[in-house]
């Protein structure tokens, strides 16, 4: 019914898609998997009309169609549920559902709110969401918003003739297990109304939900597998193009940490409604990982240790000194380094050279009589470029021009060259390809060997389990459970999830 034939897409310097074929049949759920940079997002943008293909064609029921923009795609029944939610939070649920389509409810130039509410209830019933359409969206939880988003796309059913194809872009990333379950049931039910294209980096989920799975690598579809014959290892192998090392997380390199004096110690620390009564110790060489769902307080704890947040009660002690003034500046002076989740926003300054970024937190050391010693800054940068194998033409290159993995290395070089011995890593492998992830894992082990204490918020549970000595499970800002993770006796995914939700 919906078909892409031999679709190509070029960008300056790269061919993002090479002769991609894709078919979606009526009522089918098609999965799309691939590493970052495999071309998934480009393909999706072509499907929902944000990009136009350079070669090949898009066919609906055998007829060529060409979309200039997402609106035209919508008129042909292609809907998109965005990963970063596109609802406007200060509008009501029904205003969001009918945003841009209010004309259907206009009587004598004013909106008939009752009619809109009734229509909204109908849409919400499709996604089995029992909420008042007059509710302001900001009061909904993430899962509910996701459903509203889906309901919004489903309004296409009444608005257009023909079949619907709905794209789901990483819809599970903000949901917990039960919510994922609900979503999957719903999507299965909705296949009577629409076909789905489901994009996720969680292969197990894609496998569970989809009838067929397209595997992408380097802009090409390398395989299409049926649900019955699919197997996670095979798909992973095809995505990566090689076997994943059994020792992916460098578990064999995990050494016990010294149970000596704590580098960081929190006692009964609370921060407003973000987390309550959190206590833990971090020792030299220890990798301590916080796991929990989005909003469980993991990031806030990291930011408190660094000094970006001021706790409302409790004591934070860093190297036997009680922290009284919570400022990033004093965190840095105590030897704490912070690798934030938003690499491009907080991690490095785009527009500044690699060497300038490396010394940004330690300019004092490279200043004599108020003047920067640029030559020694650059020498330091060259040393670290070599040491961490950072791929850059030279230390003068703008950091924004490097790949994500190399940017992450620059940020790590910033803290390690400054001698930070407490490193806070917030999703350090987010958005990196597998090779770059392995580099990060290697560096975590190296730092740990050198006696650096690491607090980690990992991208996935597997990562958390693989990397850490200690796992603390958080739920709604409270510590639920603490696990010891010696190689060989690590907690299982199930153990963790059990306490998370």
């Amino acid at each position: 019914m919906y078909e892409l034939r031999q679709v190509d897409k070029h960008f300056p310097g790269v061919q993002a898609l090479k002769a991609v074929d894709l078919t979606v049949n009526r009522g089918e759920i098609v999965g799309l998997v691939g590493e970052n940079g495999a071309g998934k997002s480009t393909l999706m943008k072509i499907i929902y009309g944000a990009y136009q293909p350079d070669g090949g064609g898009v066919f609906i029921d055998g007829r060529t169609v060409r979309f200039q923009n997402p609106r035209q795609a919508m008129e042909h029944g292609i809907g998109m549920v965005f990963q970063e939610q596109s609802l406007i939070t200060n509008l009501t649920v029904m205003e969001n559902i009918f945003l841009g389509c209010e004309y259907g409810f206009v009587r004598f130039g004013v909106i008939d709110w009752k009619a809109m509410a009734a229509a909204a209830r109908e849409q919400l019933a499709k996604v089995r969401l029992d909420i008042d359409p007059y509710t302001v969206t900001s009061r909904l939880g993430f899962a509910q918003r996701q459903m509203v988003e889906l309901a919004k796309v489903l309004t296409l059913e009444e608005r257009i003739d023909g079949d619907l194809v709905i794209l789901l872009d990483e819809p599970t990333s903000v949901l917990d297990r039960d919510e994922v379950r609900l979503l999957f049931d719903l999507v299965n039910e909705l296949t009577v109304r629409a076909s789905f294209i489901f994009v996720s980096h969680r292969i197990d989920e894609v496998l569970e939900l989809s009838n067929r799975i397209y595997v992408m690598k380097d802009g090409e579809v390398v395989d299409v597998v049926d649900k019955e014959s699919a197997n996670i290892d095979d798909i992973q192998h095809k995505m990566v193009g090689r076997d994943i090392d059994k020792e992916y997380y460098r578990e064999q390199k995990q050494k016990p940490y010294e149970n000596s004096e704590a580098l960081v110690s929190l006692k009964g620390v609370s921060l407003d409604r973000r987390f309550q009564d959190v206590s833990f110790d971090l020792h030299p060489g220890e990798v301590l990982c916080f796991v929990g769902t989005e909003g469980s307080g993991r990031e806030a704890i990291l930011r408190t240790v660094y000094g970006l947040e001021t706790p409302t009660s409790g004591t934070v002690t860093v190297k036997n000194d009680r922290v009284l003034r919570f400022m990033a500046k004093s965190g840095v002076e105590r030897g704490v380094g912070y690798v934030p989740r938003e690499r491009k926003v907080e991690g490095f300054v785009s527009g500044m050279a690699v060497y300038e970024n490396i010394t940004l937190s330690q300019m004092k050391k490279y200043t004599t009589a108020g003047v920067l010693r640029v030559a020694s800054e650059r020498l330091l940068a060259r040393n670290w470029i070599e040491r961490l194998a950072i791929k850059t033409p030279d230390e003068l290159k703008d950091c924004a021009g490097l790949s994500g993995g190399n940017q992450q290395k620059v940020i790590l070089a910033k803290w390690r060259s400054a001698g930070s011995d407490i490193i806070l890593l917030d999703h350090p492998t987010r958005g990196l390809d597998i090779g770059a992830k392995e580099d990060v894992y290697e560096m975590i082990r190296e730092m740990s060997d050198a006696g650096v204490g690491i607090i980690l918020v990992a991208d996935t549970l597997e990562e958390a389990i693989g990397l850490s000595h200690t796992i603390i499970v958080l739920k709604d800002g409270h510590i639920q459970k603490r696990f010891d993770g010696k190689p060989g006796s690590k907690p299982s995914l199930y153990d963790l999830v059990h306490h998370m939700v």
Partner: protein
Amino acid sequence: MNLERLKPHFPWLTLVALATVVGIANPAFFDIGGLLLLVADVVPLFVMALGMTFAIYIGGIDLSVQQIANMVTVLATVFLSQFGIGVALVCLAAGTLFGAISGYVTTRLYVPSFVSTLAMGFVALSAAKWLSGQRALSMDAQLRNESFGWMFGKTLGLPNEIIIAAVLLGITWFLQTRTPLGRALKAIGAGELAAVASGLDVDRVKIIAFAISGGLAALSGLIFSVKLSGGDANLANGFLLLAIVAVLVGGTPLTGGVGGVLNTAVGTLIVMVIRAAMVYLEVDATRQQMIFGILLIIAIAATIDRSKLRGVVK
């Protein structure tokens, strides 16, 4: 791609092109003596724009500079007899203080800089009116010549005003490129949140940037006041628009982080050439601001970094 690489060179290419056009239309423009006079004439504006560069470089703006200069013309005239050349310090301190207050209000009270500096500008204007009794004051000619006469002499054929401008440019360029403060300014302009997360004292650096802006605005007012041998609360009117134009056409965008003081030197010269052209073309003085207003909009639209705006302009 190539256009992006050319972008940093636009300002000086524009300058050369404009100067060539004006020079062809009016060969007298290239007369060295006349040209030096033109440059000397634009020095007070340049000094003000130099200060403004710091506010814009960190992604803010300073709308108080013209009023600070106005206030300083009155201060200088009123206190010249009392302090002699020391009045320069009084003026500098006043301007720096005003700038620092704007910076404090912006960073600690979370008032956007265009509002905080606008408000401080009115405070300065009002102070100028109050101090001058709304009259145009003039300096005692002898006192002026004793204390500041040297400003308008020549050294090796070069007007001293130009030397003052060059020295200030040298100092600010050094500050911008060779000191931790300059690096911090750049980091804040290019990526403020990353600067915060690297442990920089961003508030302090911003306050210093506004203080520098205020201080240089005061110097600009002082030079202008001495040049015209007097002071009044409206003397520097018309400077603000030109100073912003000079910074922006020089290539420091409103979003900050790129450009800097050398760019502003080029930008000021562009303003100078355009002004000279308008005189030559006999554009009426009342219409000149119209042209600079339009030029300002073009300069902003051409230089702004849209990726930093995230699609929303309010």
